């Protein structure tokens, strides 16, 4: 993930940083364009982190407006995408904290129903996704946020650390704990997915190191 090119950026298009500058300078369309560029990814992060469609929409809206108003604070120390993701993840974790502080509003079944796919067919992958979502819900939110960024969205450990505001070592340990915890919950799915290679068309994978022996840098 670099400052100048998001996953959808065309070579000749205006960079994220330029769009943010234009927004700060008063361009009324620049922020919309910037947000539109990344909203699918930001949505995926939000939905995976809060595991509830309504909460995810609320969190993403909070984050979007916050980013809109606080754009002048952006100092360019990180990529614009990192900054946007950080605001979204923080909005999600804030919501989860608030939700934890009040009596449960949404039962597991309702949450599952809310996550029901908009896809017209009940494909194997869709079924697997629902099960993965259910398994993810068993993780503590901070661990889940790290795992979602690294294993599901393909962020490097260092990018995830930037987004979450924690050290790379903490990202790694949260991911490791999450994987160990998920193992018994998703084992039955491995057969269903078989050896299906990670789909290039259904993932928003960013280039970056994986948490793997090859990628270890601690």
């Amino acid at each position, binding site marked *: 993930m670099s400052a100048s090119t998001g996953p959808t950026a065309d070579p000749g298009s205006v960079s994220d940083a330029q769009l943010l500058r234009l927004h700060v*300078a*008063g361009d009324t369309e620049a922020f919309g364009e910037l947000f539109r560029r990344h909203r699918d990814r930001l949505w995926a992060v939000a939905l995976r982190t809060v595991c509830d469609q309504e909460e*995810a929409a609320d969190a993403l809206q909070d984050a979007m407006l916050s980013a809109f*108003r606080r754009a002048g604070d952006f100092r360019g120390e990180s990529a614009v995408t990192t900054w946007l993701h950080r605001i979204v993840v923080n909005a999600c974790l804030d919501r989860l904290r608030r939700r934890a502080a009040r009596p449960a509003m949404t039962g597991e079944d309702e949450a599952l129903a809310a996550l029901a796919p908009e896809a017209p067919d009940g494909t194997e992958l869709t079924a697997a996704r629902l099960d993965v979502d259910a398994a993810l819900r068993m993780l503590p939110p901070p661990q889940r946020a790290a795992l979602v960024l690294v294993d599901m969205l393909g962020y490097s450990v260092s990018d995830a650390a930037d987004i979450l505001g924690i050290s790379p070592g903490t990202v790694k340990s949260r991911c490791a704990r999450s994987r160990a915890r998920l193992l018994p919950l998703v084992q039955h799915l491995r057969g269903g997915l078989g050896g299906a290679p990670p789909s290039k068309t259904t993932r928003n994978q960013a280039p970056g190191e994986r948490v793997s022996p090859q990628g270890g840098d601690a």
Partner: protein
Amino acid sequence: MKGHLDADVLAEYRAWLITGRRRRAIAAHLSGCAECAALDARLAQVSALLAATPAPSMPDAVTRRLDDALAAEVHRPISAERHSVPAKRRGFPSWAGRSWAGRSWAGRSWAGRSWAGRSWAGAFRVRVLAPVAAAAAVLAGGGYVLSQVGGTSALSGPDTAAGNAGSGQAVSSGFGASAGPASSAAKSRMSPERNNQAVPGSGVYVVTSDLNYTAATLRTQVAAQLRARPSLHGTLAPAAVSACVLRITRNAIPVLTEKARYQDTPATIIVLSRDGSDQVWVAGPHCTATNSDILDHVVLSPGISAP
């Protein structure tokens, strides 16, 4: 190593959280224990499974909702509220004032193209109605408008301006009503934003020059032009130019609007006095009521346009 490894240890091992002698011991154990090796392989597949899980696409209802929320934010009136909430937005970050010399504008046509026709674009259209209406009022206002503006110029008094209005040739200082000496007293009492707001009775005046501004020298060129301001004469801007300018300044009257060139292409230089500094925008030929086409933006701080 005695006994078997558990998933937690193996997960840490896989993430390279375990190093050195302990790592070597685990590696040795894995090479000789089929049970632990199988657990390790299953653990590896957890990440693979997660990676293969399709990313959810944003439901249309959420897309619409976010569009609406952003449009509402963009439409928020440019009054006290708008400027008080993001106080930081007014304090431009250091990089905002930097000239973007050397950047590639190969994709300059991005404005209004890459996302034109999307729901975002439609959302912004309503916003510019007010500025356009203000500009129209200015044009229709005739002598009244000019006498107001004329009063702000050190060179042309109200009588001169009114006389020129009669002949259809609007000549004034070329600067907005709020920038002149006459309004300096008011400025000290009111916030610049409010003081600068376009109201019927003030208008955007434009000067035309054959200057060719460049990215590298934009600051010095604008500074020189602002110092020469009293000798510049402008005309009431056509509605299209007003709409573009007011869109960029968010309805505030600039102290200088100049039709010139920028990097050898036709451009409009717009300078707005705000909070003691001068905001300078360079708008390209495609700047309209609905499309800013900003080519460059710098901040002169402290500003030199203030009286």
